[in-house]
């Protein structure tokens, strides 16, 4: 009997791993991925980076050009996240199990959020580029749309987790819908919600780089500019400032999280 279990487990594992192997081989063929070249180019890239990809004195002279772009990207990330958070709150209230008004409204708001979150940011950027051109609003709105979709989902989960018992208590004592929301749901979910907002800001700074490359704005545009003109020293400086900003945001949000949660 015991031996059967082990034999069956071995067989299951064998099937699982051979299936995984087949999918991997199929993927390699489909994507025309050159496995050997993959490994060798990691080392080639490392060697190249040590020799060429570091900021030198000439690159540092570009810093005054880079910093305003960096500022634009940071402000864009923070602002789009904050406004997305404000718009997310009503949708999350309708979508949460605890505070929903009815099931139809709940499903509709969850579906809307899901569409906003799953339409790739490239598609948003492409559509917005038609009307807003290379202005900062293109990137702003693209970030806004995806952050909105993400934050609705995060807020719904937060509200479901944090406020079930307090809502029941207030309902039992005869509080109205709005009283329940402002006295129980939002206060108890607030720390976790702020934590999600901070996390989204961090993600958006990285996404803003990508959107910037696509739409020619912000820090992504700076990178693209130096990269295409093969000024790799300046391009590495752009990477460095992005890393510093991401670390700083992470540091601050870790501090805030530690204190408020």
């Amino acid at each position, binding site marked *: 009997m015991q031996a059967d279990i082990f034999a069956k487990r071995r067989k299951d594992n064998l099937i699982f791993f051979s299936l*995984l192997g087949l*999918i*991997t081989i199929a*993927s390699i063929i*489909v*994507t025309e*991925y*050159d496995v050997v070249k*993959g490994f060798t*180019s990691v080392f*080639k*890239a490392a060697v190249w980076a040590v020799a060429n*990809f570091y900021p030198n004195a000439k690159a540092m002279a570009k810093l005054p050009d880079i910093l305003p772009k960096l*500022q*634009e990207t940071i*402000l*864009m990330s*923070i*602002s789009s996240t*904050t*406004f997305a958070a404000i718009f997310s709150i009503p949708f999350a209230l309708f979508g949460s199990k605890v505070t929903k008004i009815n099931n139809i409204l709940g499903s509709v708001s969850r579906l809307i959020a899901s569409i906003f979150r*799953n*339409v*790739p*940011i*490239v*598609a948003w950027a492409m*559509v917005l*580029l*038609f*009307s*807003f*051109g*290379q*202005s*900062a*609003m293109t990137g*702003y*709105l693209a970030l806004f749309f995806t952050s909105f979709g993400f934050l609705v989902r*995060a807020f719904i989960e937060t509200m479901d987790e944090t406020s079930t018992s307090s809502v029941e208590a207030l309902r039992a004592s005869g509080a109205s819908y709005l009283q329940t929301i402002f006295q129980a749901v*939002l*206060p108890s979910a*607030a*720390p976790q919600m*702020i934590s999600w*907002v901070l*996390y989204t800001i*961090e993600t958006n700074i*990285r*996404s803003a*780089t*990508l959107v910037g490359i*696509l739409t020619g704005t912000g820090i992504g545009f700076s*990178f693209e500019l130096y990269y295409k003109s093969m000024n790799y020293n300046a391009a590495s400086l752009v990477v460095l400032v*992005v*890393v510093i900003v*991401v*670390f700083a945001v992470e540091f601050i949000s870790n501090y805030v999280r530690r*204190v*408020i949660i």
Partner: protein
Amino acid sequence: MQMEETLNTAWEEPSNDISNDERPMSIRKISKASIVMNATLLFLAIVSIYAFFTFDYKNVNLIEAFSSTFYNLKIVFLEPHLKHFSVHETIWQLIVTLGLTVLTTLIGSVIALFFGLFAAQNLSTKLASNIIKAVVAFIRAVPTVLWVLIFAVAAGLGSVAAVIGITFHTIGYLIKAFSESFEELDKGVIEALKGSGANWWQIVFQAVIPSCASYLISWTFLRFEINFTYAILMGAAAGAGGIGFDLYMAGGHYFDLREVGFITYIILAVALVLEVISTRMKVKLSGFD
């Protein structure tokens, strides 16, 4: 008494200040928390509004642009068609994108599993753990697209650069996730095995990996979902091919919004399926990127 007072004020002034959280117990801790929370909200509000005064609007008429965006979105979502690509060509590109997703997730998770063990403090030395964690923090801080473009210098634009670049970010993400799962493991289990003379590899394969397996699998699938998005983005921004490249061509070269719509619907369908699966198999995970 104090309890009553707080309750009274809560009843009399239904304020919409979400940080108005004054429970009578442990007032000091809460007040520091509420100061930081209010400060954070205030900071975010000021910066968010200030941002609008600094943007480069390039003389775009905002009202006109908003209304034309609305009109364009209607075209995108209500009149999708294909013109420059055939249906089976588009489906093939979708398969290429899924192939990129599979490769990056698989390679990434295998490498991350290995380094995750050495990054977990209960399975490794403090020095090794700290070094790996510092490197991982750096890898995650650099946006994926920049990794892909950096590797593209050595490997040329294409699937090799995309796979390595996305894999790199995947490794960073999963090492953090995996090592945190390992660190939550009950200390007694490891000690018991050590006491019975098991060596490190035996501990890892008999105790650590089996008991974390469900976490490892859900993290990996969550990353699969994220990598699908990245595979699309890298197709558009870094020439990695796949459906993302078609999307970029349709929007940026053919200026065909209806085609953008069709491709978006295909991507949306796959993404929704992935999201449903990952919600189903969700163990409690706190997401991060």
